[in-house]
């Protein structure tokens, strides 16, 4: 059992997501930074889809009442276990009565905390992920509160491991985000597409799990900004009339009527989600073939990213 002493500003339960429901208007949810989430689960010996916590900007403080292993990945939040500093991206063994605390993120936005066994909640429509706007899944469809108690499935203690340095993503600098142009790139002027690919865009504080709102050089339309509403893919860069891009994320609306100039590749969604308000990013266009090759590379980094911890 885990007892929340302080939940942090927005801590939710996520698994890999709720699939097959977009045709009913329900987004997949799940972690914004899938890579960091999966690595956290693997560090504690869980299947990739075990339910874990996503914390935003400031982490929670909680007490564990039984022995288990935890791992913290994602944004760089200072971790202490029972007052002692502890590393991220590493299996941590905690004892009954230990208090774990994650401080404010120094780099990045979203951290993940996985527990050996995974969080034990009833799946809703096949998933434990929290969809906040739809009040669905997780714990009563909401962010965690003080005094919430979470059960953890029983599991053997995993052997301790850490994530190899080369597999730890760098969230700090101005990241270059790979996109595939379209589906409606033809609804923009050449200058508009050029603006998207040639300039840095700054993350706005209104960003959330639904969409990352950016500000920068105007992306101009050639034939108006409205289309007949169609489906919105993960990472779609929607550009309303003001010419400012919004990258649609895991809690996005399923359909919409704004033009989408390009779509962020799945393997870079997590990097978008780790850009802090005020920090910038850049976009670079790749073809679908290139994107699929890069996806396989990202898979390889994940598959070979864990190292045995030498005691």
């Amino acid at each position, binding site marked *: 059992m885990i007892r929340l002493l302080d939940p942090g500003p927005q801590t939710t339960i996520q698994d890999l997501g709720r699939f*097959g429901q*977009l*045709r*009913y208007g329900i987004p997949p949810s799940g972690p914004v930074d899938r890579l960091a989430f999966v690595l956290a689960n693997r560090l504690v010996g869980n299947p990739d889809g075990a339910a874990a916590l996503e914390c935003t900007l400031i982490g929670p403080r909680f007490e564990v009442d039984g022995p288990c292993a935890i791992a913290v990945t994602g944004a760089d939040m200072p971790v202490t276990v029972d007052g002692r500093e502890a590393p991220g991206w590493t299996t941590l063994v905690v004892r009954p009565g230990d208090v774990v605390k994650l401080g404010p993120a120094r780099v990045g936005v979203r951290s993940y905390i996985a527990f050996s066994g995974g969080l034990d909640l009833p799946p809703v429509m096949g998933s434990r992920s929290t969809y906040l706007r*739809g009040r669905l899944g997780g714990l009563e469809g909401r962010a965690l509160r003080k005094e919430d108690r979470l059960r953890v499935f029983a599991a053997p203690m995993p052997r301790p491991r850490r994530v190899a340095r080369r597999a730890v993503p760098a969230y700090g600098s101005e990241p270059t985000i790979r996109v595939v142009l379209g589906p409606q790139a033809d609804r923009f002027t050449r200058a508009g597409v050029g603006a998207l690919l040639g300039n840095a865009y700054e993350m706005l504080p209104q960003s959330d799990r639904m969409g990352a709102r950016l500000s920068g050089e105007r992306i101009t339309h050639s034939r108006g900004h409205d289309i*007949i*509403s169609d489906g919105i893919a993960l990472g779609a860069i929607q550009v309303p009339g003001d010419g400012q891009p919004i990258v649609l994320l895991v809690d996005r609306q399923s359909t919409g009527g704004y033009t989408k100039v390009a779509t962020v*590749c799945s393997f870079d969604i997590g990097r978008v989600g780790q850009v802090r308000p005020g920090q910038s990013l850049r976009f670079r266009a790749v073809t679908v073939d290139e994107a699929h090759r890069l*996806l396989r590379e990202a898979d390889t980094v994940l598959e070979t990213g864990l190292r045995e911890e030498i005691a």
Partner: protein
Amino acid sequence: MRFLPAGDLAVLVEFDEEISVEVNTRVRALEFLIQQKALTGVVETVPTFRALLVYYDPRAVGYDALCAAITELLPQATTAVLPPSRLVELPCCYDDPELGFDLAAAAERLGLSTAELVRLHSTAEYLVYFIGFTPGLPYMTGMPDRLQIARLDTPRVRVPAGSVGIGGIQCCVYSVESPGGFWVLGRTPLRLYDPDAPEPILLRPGDRVSFRAIDRREYDRIAARVDARTYRPVIT
């Protein structure tokens, strides 16, 4: 028809540049065929007015192979393959200004009596083109031409879930409380989205929908049964 890449995990299959029952039927028929044939690598599909968004796993199928497999299904994507559609009855209370707060003003704008407006709205049969934007929200066609009306000049900040509205050529039922620019004629006590129900979503793409005018007493009675989870929607 054309294929438009939507990132590395999805492709948009776009039909004609128009909103019509004919085009939307082809979209839904294609979706049905993709599901029925369990096309390799397809993760999920999202039908809209004139396009089908197909999410796929590129580890299981390449972009070109997927587009080729979809192209092969296109000739069969007609009404003939679709299973019979359901008819879902939505009870709707029009005659209480607390629920249908724009009924009188809409009737005046349209030059109709409120009774005539209710009659026209509740005797039409609507078709759900698709569900989208918010959970369970139906995009429907079938509204009588006589009820075409410009949207509200100033959208409301909050429209309660269950509100039945008209705007442009569309009829809409709000599935969750949200802002909106439709004229609200009434409210259904049914929940189009209920996160706590075993089946949270009431309507599906391709459903036909009719509204049955009820008075406030019946509205309250059905609402109580919906709360108690003893109400079964009339679906034929």
